[in-house]
């Protein structure tokens, strides 16, 4: 009898998120006949792509028991720098590569303070949050960068095999992240460090380098998301990405990754981002005023965590 209960629990723990998403989809399609249409589904996927990319990077950091609050500001910084280089005459590919390199470098900057100076990730990236924002504003004097070459339009509005390019970028980045986390020694080291850092060190894992990697990866994710956003807006705003870090963290935790590290994965994060995206979309379709939307979103995050707690309670 107890066996049956445990199996049921594990089933729920494993597929509960997907079930929750399905339930949401069913409810919303009953409430609005515009919801379950091909164009709306693609619309939702495109809307979540930026958050999902940032959240994938965030997942890596959080599994290693870190946090990265600087991603929203870094998105703005890499966006304006990349866009300015392109406007200034560099080939679009080079400008984009430079922006991604900058994201990586700033991630390394965060990671170095965490891994080598031993400062708490929360503090380091909180500093990063204001520093990168300040740099983005100073670099552009507070003005948006526009007049971009057509390559950016392709990123924002192009499509391939019937799917918009942002969705492809999101899927590609999620797959790469999944492979790194699950199938590489580096990824498994991230889990080990999040689960028990001392044990990881004693096992001969180069803990500092791995921690550095997690932040660098998150920086790269922010820069990739930034290129997508720049393409969508066809301009780069130094004020873009405010509070994006919170949406990303929400997707990660709703997706079942533990803030205490060592557990979780990027598949859950995708579902988390979808749940949040579907709710946003549904409320828009139902004309829920935006003030109430925020309340609902917060409520969903709490509910997801509450359910996850109830399901995993007493499991060890």
């Amino acid at each position, binding site marked *: 009898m107890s066996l049956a209960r445990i199996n049921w629990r594990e089933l729920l723990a494993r597929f509960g998120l997907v079930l929750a998403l399905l339930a949401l989809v069913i409810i919303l399609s009953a409430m609005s006949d515009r919801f379950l249409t091909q164009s709306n589904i693609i619309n939702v996927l495109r809307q979540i792509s930026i958050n999902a990319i940032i959240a994938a990077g965030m997942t890596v950091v959080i599994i290693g028991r870190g946090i990265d609050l600087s991603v929203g500001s870094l998105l703005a910084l890499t966006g304006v720098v990349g866009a300015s280089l392109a406007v200034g005459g560099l080939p679009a590919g080079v400008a984009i590569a430079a922006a991604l390199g900058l994201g990586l470098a700033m991630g390394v900057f965060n990671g170095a303070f965490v891994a080598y100076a031993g400062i708490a990730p929360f503090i380091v990236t909180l500093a990063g949050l204001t520093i990168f924002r300040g740099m983005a504003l100073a670099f552009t004097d507070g003005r948006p960068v526009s007049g971009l070459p057509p390559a950016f339009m392709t990123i924002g509005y192009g499509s391939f095999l019937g799917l918009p390019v942002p969705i492809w970028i999101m899927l590609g980045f999620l797959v790469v992240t999944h492979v790194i986390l699950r199938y590489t020694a580096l990824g498994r080291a991230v889990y*080990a460090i999040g689960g028990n850092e001392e044990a990881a060190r004693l096992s001969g894992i180069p803990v500092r380098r791995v921690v550095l990697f997690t932040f660098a990866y998150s920086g790269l994710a922010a820069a990739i998301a930034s290129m997508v956003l720049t393409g969508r807006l066809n301009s780069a705003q130094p004020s873009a990405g405010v509070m994006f870090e919170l949406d990303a963290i929400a997707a990660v935790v709703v997706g079942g990754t533990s803030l205490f590290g060592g557990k979780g994965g990027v598949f859950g994060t995708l579902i988390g981002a979808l749940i949040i995206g579907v709710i946003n979309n549904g409320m828009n379709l139902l004309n829920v005023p935006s003030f109430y939307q925020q309340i609902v979103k917060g409520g969903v995050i709490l509910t997801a965590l509450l359910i996850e707690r109830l399901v995993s309670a007493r499991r060890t």
Partner: protein
Amino acid sequence: MALLSMHGVSKRFGAVTALQGVDFTLEAGEVHALVGENGAGKSTLMKILAGVQPPDEGHMQLGGDDVRFSSVQEAQARGVVMVYQELALVPTLSVAENLFLGRLPRFVDYGALRTRARTLLAQVDLHLDPDTEVARLSIGERQLVEIARALAREGRVLILDEPTAALASTETDRLFEIITRVKASGVSVVYISHRLEEVFRIADRVTVLRDGALVGTRTVADTNAEQVIEMMVGSSVHRYERPARVRERVVGTFEVTERDLRPVRITLHAGEIVGLAGVIGSGRERVLPCAFGLRGSARWNDAAIGSPRDAIKAGIVLVPSDRKTQGLVVGLSVEANLSLATLGRLQRFGFMRAGAVRAQSRHWIERLSLRPPDPDKAVWELSGGNQQKVVIAKALATEPEVLLLDEPTRGVDVGARAELYDVIDDLSSRGLALLLSSSDTEELLGLSDRILVFREGRVTAELQPPYDYEEVVAHVTGAHQLA
């Protein structure tokens, strides 16, 4: 020439001198025991060898070359592998992944990983699904996983820091077979243990440390237990004998059960010590966590114990077997840890009474001879044995009616053991009822008023004093069944 030699190794931690000019040599293919009381510096010396921490002074030679390891990776690259006293596995990862932690190939092939994991586990006779999360294993199983992991690295120096502390006698036998095997293949083994009978069974040489200094190295064939104990403590230790007692007042009855444990009823009398014997996996190791409301289901005098809070309210306290993860907040001071379970009593109108807190910690530090006797020291700075004293003191401070002791002297040296036994004896003579779960048969024989033997998830025998050592072992191992 020796495979490895350490010369004049010193190490200080702030004001504490952990090691002072210690020399140590290791021959190829020998088993070298390292003994000494808690805090003698055994773990520190070996951690220096394994690259966990650098020495302040001194130098090392390995295979004729001067070496200085600045990280665990470097030591492992030269073939030095250590199984730590404090378990060092990642609880959220699977057994297979823990086995290859730090040595995973760049891309992980889970099928191959599982197959290799099974082979390694078979070497230590552990038949587990390699996908099991480590968090679900018992301490003894974890210890065996760690040993399998060390074997997987195929080093030429294998350091085992109190490997048998959590193992029952059959697992110990298995470990000794493994040690004999790796020794035959030319590997040198450093064996740290507080159990001298093991040292005399397995070791070729024995080195004794006392207060961070080398006392001497002896060939095992040319020495005896008394001599080694004398080297360790500098004087002789009295052996603990338990007088017979009468059972009178019934304190209550436990009924516990769990997935791997059939329902058991245990009635406890005031002042009684009931010993629980059994190998790991026999169900014995499940009883106390159940009784404390951590897992399974438990009733005490027909009231359900669903959580540690219920248990504590009913006057039941547990001294858990894994001090690092369950017993202590290692970042806090000794005093803070000692007061954790008695916060209610130590406050007035919500404010901690500093005087009472200090008095309580002084009392227990003295009663258990904690070293160093400093209430403000952080717990992680103490040696393993002294940490265990803090856990026990914390539980005792609540003045419980029933004390559950899970491997109470795991990693505690001879001298400190005797002190702990005195404390336990004193408590039972004041009417406290105790349930003692232990892998150490001698400890059970010395302390218990009766012994329940567990095998295959149930009680298979109840033994009364006077005990016959061999009979108890026969029951525990199931050899009784064969006769």
